[in-house]
């Protein structure tokens, strides 16, 4: 393993010395590493990145780290060992990932981060992240409007270890807290999980039957909460989610969940591959390492245009 890696590195270095004229040995490979594809959001990232890589003439190595930093580190070793020319990464932890990305950089493999930030700059070539805060503000503004600026509501928060859970919650409150007649009667984490959101919603509803709305940190929890509300014959409760999944799209068009916020997962992954391509072929880094991509509000007006984390025109 070690020998192979050494040899690959030597070959890689040799190739760099020869310049771009060298025939593709490992030159064609781009590694795409994301959390588990069980969540359609991460699957959309991987599919988007792979499609763009192939379109640009690369071979794609698609891997999942299951939000395990140790596994991520091993996968980065694999990518280095296989002589990947670039790594597209939706990472497994803002702090834990820094060393892994540094390791790739030291081995001459540039990383292009998507979706989640890391707590360091100058290590990855690019960090293209959804503007979760701006997205949360959009969702909250719609929620405030739907609530008529008053009433009791519940907030379902995502997994605490995920930076984006906190960012979204802050973004929601940034808007909602400007309206003193909106009163949060419960705030609980359902860990991004649909089943957990269902059971949490059931008990919250028992303690607080007088709620008018639920704002959720993501779509899977919104789906769980809405199912619990339907089961309790409380379809009148306003539910707003986040992510822009096809499940929530279908619920919106059927008059269930009222709104969600689309993260451009597919486009983001493709943009990362384009920047990797530019870096590989032209030695050109993007103008800025940290790049924010705006999110888009999805409600009954534009829901029919939503498909696999992208809006069609």
């Amino acid at each position: 393993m070690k020998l192979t890696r050494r040899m690959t590195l030597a070959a890689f270095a040799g190739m760099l010395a020869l310049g771009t004229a060298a025939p593709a040995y490992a030159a064609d490979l781009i590694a795409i590493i994301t959390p588990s594809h069980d969540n359609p959001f991460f699957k959309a990232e991987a599919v988007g990145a792979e499609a763009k890589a192939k379109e640009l003439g690369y071979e794609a190595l698609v891997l999942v780290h299951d939000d395990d930093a140790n596994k991520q580190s091993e996968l980065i070793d694999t990518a280095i060992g296989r002589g990947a020319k670039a790594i597209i990464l939706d990472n497994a932890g803002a702090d834990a990932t820094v060393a892994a990305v540094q390791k790739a950089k030291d081995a001459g493999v540039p990383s292009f981060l998507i979706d989640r930030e890391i707590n360091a700059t100058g290590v990855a070539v690019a960090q293209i992240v959804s503007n979760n805060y701006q997205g949360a503000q959009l969702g909250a503004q719609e929620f405030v409007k739907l609530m008529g600026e008053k009433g009791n509501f519940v907030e379902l928060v995502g997994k605490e270890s995920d930076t984006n859970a906190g960012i979204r919650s802050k973004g929601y409150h940034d808007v909602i807290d400007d309206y003193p007649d909106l009163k949060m009667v419960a705030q609980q984490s359902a860990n991004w999980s649909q089943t957990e959101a269902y059971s949490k919603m059931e008990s919250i509803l028992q303690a607080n039957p007088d709620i008018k709305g639920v704002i959720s940190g993501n779509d899977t929890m919104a789906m769980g909460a809405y199912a619990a509300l339907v089961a309790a014959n409380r379809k009148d409760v306003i539910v707003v989610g986040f992510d822009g999944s096809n499940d929530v799209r279908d619920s919106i068009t059927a008059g269930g969940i009222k709104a969600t916020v689309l993260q451009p997962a597919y486009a983001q992954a493709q943009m990362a591959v384009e920047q990797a391509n530019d870096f590989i072929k032209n030695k050109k880094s993007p103008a800025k390492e940290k790049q924010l991509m705006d999110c888009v509000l999805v409600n009954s007006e534009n829901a029919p245009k939503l498909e696999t984390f992208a809006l069609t025109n």
Partner: protein
Amino acid sequence: MLNKPTWSILAVTVGISLTACKILPTQSADGGDAAAFNPDKMVEEIWAAKVVPYLQQKAGPFPEVHALAKTDPAAAGAKYGNPNKQANSPWTFTVRLEGEIVAANTQSRAATVDVDVDGDGKADARVQIGPAMRGTALRDSLDFVQFNDFTNQIDFAQFGKAFNAYAGKTVLSKLPRDALEGRTAKILGAYTLESGQDLPLVTPAEAEIGPKP
């Protein structure tokens, strides 16, 4: 023999430069002090010195800017927008706007006035007068504010909100709230070009509302 003084001088020089180096961590510790991040204070410090002068110098008359923005957003952006905006973000334009208030919504905490700029009796722009305000148009109009200069998107967002809060506190809270229709409005501010929006939503940095007609 001759070498000895040279070496000691060298040693002294090295000593000095090492001492000089030691200052650096202290500085970076200062700069990286996340706990001290105070967006409200940052905005207060640059508002009069940098923000308002920038907007005054950059702003175009609203009808001209918006007409160009609708036909050629890139051209409007080059002239009135922030050239350092995020690649996939819409343009944010700096505008001067003057006209008659034809409608007002002061029921909402996100209060607005609709202003007729061209005198046809119809609203051309919606101006936020707070206390609750949407978006980050003021922050996003400034070419000297960069996301890369912030630790993360939370800090960046709170910095954006601080602009709205400062404008709200120092400018908008002093505006009249009753019988606004028919009065004149004079605004210096910014708006972000968004699709599916009925009227451009302008966030003011300076605002005057005239007396009752």
